[in-house]
């Protein structure tokens, strides 16, 4: 072949070689096929551990029971037994060390999530006891009359 064919060809090959060389330095060593194939598993392996080591914020009811047995047992015996403590009391991540970090949600909005009356007969929502938020003591906090740990008690 003539020179005018070879010269641009060498330039192109040089660029490819340069890119491959740069890749050696710039791509992390653990970058490769780690899943089931190239299409779905081409990634940086250490990223899996980065995700695994994220802090767990919601600790679960068992952790609350260790110190707050009285409240936890009362709530466990009630109809609210399936509600996690942390749904109202906030995620307990830093709580044992710094109790001030636990913001208790006492707002009406929290109770209304389930107890605002929605007339849906084909959904479990329709079977829950509900109120009309606009007419049922709209200015009061629910906990002034109802104890969320003992919901079966009649309001005074």
């Amino acid at each position, binding site marked *: 072949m003539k020179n005018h064919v070879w010269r641009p060809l060498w330039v192109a090959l040089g660029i490819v070689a340069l890119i491959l060389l740069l890749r050696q330095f710039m791509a992390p060593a653990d*970058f490769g096929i780690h899943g089931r194939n190239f299409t779905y598993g081409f*990634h940086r392996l250490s*990223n899996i551990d980065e995700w695994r080591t994220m802090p767990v914020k919601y600790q679960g009811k068992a952790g609350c029971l260790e110190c707050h047995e009285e409240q936890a047992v009362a709530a466990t015996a009630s109809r609210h037994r399936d509600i996690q403590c942390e749904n109202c009391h906030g995620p307990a991540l830093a709580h044992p060390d710094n109790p001030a970090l636990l913001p208790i949600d006492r707002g009406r909005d929290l109770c209304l*999530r*389930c107890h605002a009356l*929605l007339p849906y*007969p084909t959904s479990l*929502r329709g079977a*829950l006891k509900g109120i009309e938020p606009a007419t049922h003591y709209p200015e009061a906090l629910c906990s002034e009359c109802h104890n969320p740990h003992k919901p079966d008690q009649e309001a005074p």
Partner: protein
Amino acid sequence: MASTRRKFLQGSLAGIVTAVIPLSAFRFLSPDQARAAVGEADTRWVFLVDTHKCVGCGLCVAACKRENEIPYEVPVTRTWVERYVVTKDGATHIDSPLGGRDGFVSERVAGQEIDPASISKAFFVPKLCNQCENPACVQVCPVGATYQTRDGVVLVDRSWCIGCGYCIMACPYGVRFFHPVHKVAEKCNFCYHRISQGLTTACVQACPFGARRIGNLKDQDDPVTQTIMTTRVAVLKDEYGTKPQVFYIGLDNEVR
């Protein structure tokens, strides 16, 4: 030029040698490495949603946002709850204010008043990443920043994502969004940090009604697996061929 036997053999030999030499460029695996590369994982995370049990309280959405550090006031979320109200005239009213973060407290659907007597059926549908067996979002990533783990969860590498947004467009379920703080693609990953250490996901833990459950499809004794195998379940947008792994009990045709 007449072909001789000698020339033919010489030519064949040269051809074989040139064909074999590039093979040395490939990596040869030990039998253990090869087995590890193709071997089946003993975990396949799947999700089971019972739409009969969901009451639309949205505690799952609130817990998810706090657990996974998704800015609370920004209207993006990894999981969300949709409300479907079908009236007797055949119309379907759908809404999901803030993804259901604050629950559903009003009878108004998308700002529209609906007469309770006209409702023929109404229900809530929680949605989250389907962790597809053939994830379209992973196929389109140009830099290898999103991938499927061996246990079936699709993750995003935050330090590698360039934020091009292809995956956000590719997901047929609208699960992905742009993380307002990290400026990369963000998605539900079944709380990978929790399930990897034996905990359940934040949304499953927060749900007081047992509408959400997570399980391992490869474990025949797993109650979620047994439910999926023995009851009638459906998936979303089966026609896309993505093989979604979030199974729904009581899914309606109105749900898309």
